[in-house]
């Protein structure tokens, strides 16, 4: 009946007795209006499967839950930070199919079927990614709260731009903010990491 996990067809929704779940009555009318082909998730929690750092993870979330909240509150991956929660600061950056996204602006349910990479899957104290190493060596952090988002955004950027100029780096990492003002260190780190990653050691 369902084409993808977390989504069901109209028949399922009706069978589940929507009216009892909601007080507004609004969604009953919506469900009636829903064409037979449209995939529906909710109301209430739905089971979904996310591919996080290469592994499938099953969780049950309401449709309104954003990817950042799913990662932090349901999967216990707290590397991505929830700071502005409005798609501006970049502290929640993760890679989705290799591209940087603000995980506060993506619904968890919409991240199904995509490969999600977080800071935890990228680097660890024992085996540092060249980007993390370069951040450390260049003092590219002060309080550290923006750092995981910066490292992920930097890796995503360097994967697609292996030979950046400083101007490219400035533009490419412009979606991440640092209240401590460590931008000079961050840019130096990105340029150093670019050189090291070209050796292909850690990709």
């Amino acid at each position: 009946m369902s084409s993808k996990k977390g989504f069901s067809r109209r028949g399922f929704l009706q069978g589940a007795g929507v009216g009892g779940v909601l007080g507004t009555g609004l969604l009953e009318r919506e469900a009636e209006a829903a064409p037979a082909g449209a995939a529906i998730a909710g109301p209430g929690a739905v089971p979904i499967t996310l591919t996080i750092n290469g592994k499938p993870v099953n969780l049950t979330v309401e449709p309104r839950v954003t990817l950042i909240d799913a990662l932090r509150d349901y999967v216990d991956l707290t590397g991505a930070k929830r700071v502005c929660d409005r798609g501006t600061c970049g502290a929640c950056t993760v890679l989705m199919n290799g591209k940087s996204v603000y995980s506060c602006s993506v619904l968890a349910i919409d991240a199904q079927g995509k490969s999600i990479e977080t800071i935890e899957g990228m680097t660890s104290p024992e085996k540092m990614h060249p980007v993390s190493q370069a951040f450390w060596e260049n003092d590219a952090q002060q309080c550290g709260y923006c750092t995981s988002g910066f490292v992920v955004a930097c890796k995503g950027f360097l994967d697609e731009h292996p030979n950046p100029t400083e101007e490219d780096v400035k533009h490419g990492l412009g979606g991440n903010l640092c209240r401590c003002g460590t931008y000079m260190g961050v840019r130096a780190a990105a340029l150093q990491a670019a050189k090291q990653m070209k050796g292909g050691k850690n990709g």
Partner: protein
Amino acid sequence: MFERVEVFYRPASVREAVRLLAGGKGRARIVAGGTDLVVDGDPTARALIDITHSGLAYIRKQGGGCAIGAATTMAELEESRTILALGGGILARAAATCGSIQIRGVATVGGNLANGSPAADLVTPLLVLDAVVVVADAKGRRKLPIAEYLAARGTKGLRQSLLVEVTAPRPLGRRCGWSFQKLGRTALDISVVNVAAGLQVDGAGRIQWARVALGAVAPTAIRAGATEENLQGRTLDAEAIAQAAEGVMREVSPISDVRASAAYRREMCRVLTRRALEECAAQAGCAL
């Protein structure tokens, strides 16, 4: 901020999306990249209709021009050969300035237009390109020139419709010039003012066709109609450009806000229009 959202729909076609929208009784919202909706935090939204699986992510060549699906992302526009070749690539340039990498990977053409911000980066290039917006509702599809769409966007007639596609006609032939100029606090910031221009000159350097559009200086992005008329038939030289740049200042109605004062915006209209027309002149092969 999706706290009050209860249901998430993922229609597989435009028809389904439109039916869901009509059935939503004003409480369903179209979502694609989600970058505006998250910031907006609309507390009346109870259902989201995700159109990223409705077959609307495409850039097609169409009769010499092109058709762009509403769910096409800024990143896709930036990199598309078709868009880079259209009107000197001004639409691709505008897309490249639209927020950070994280935003451009998910933010869509449809969202940029339907959100209705007077500062939306894609609107001024689309005005210059004589773009047409295709909207769909329960009754079917209709086409609206982009200026008409902007004017009618919030009205009852369009509230229950879905922006489906934007088309740009075949661009003009030889001796054309195009430009997109944006002033923001940083390279990735929202526009304080943006200007797009396009023109074509004849063999003697006289202007045969001119478009000047300005963003963030009126309730919607606008075309400077009087300035365009004054350029028509004139020789494209430094004097014509200076007069046009002065002229646009009389056609705009900027406000003062947190980003800039009205007076500063008006002055920047002159500066950006001059820069835009100078770039157009260089491309059209007119020595100034």
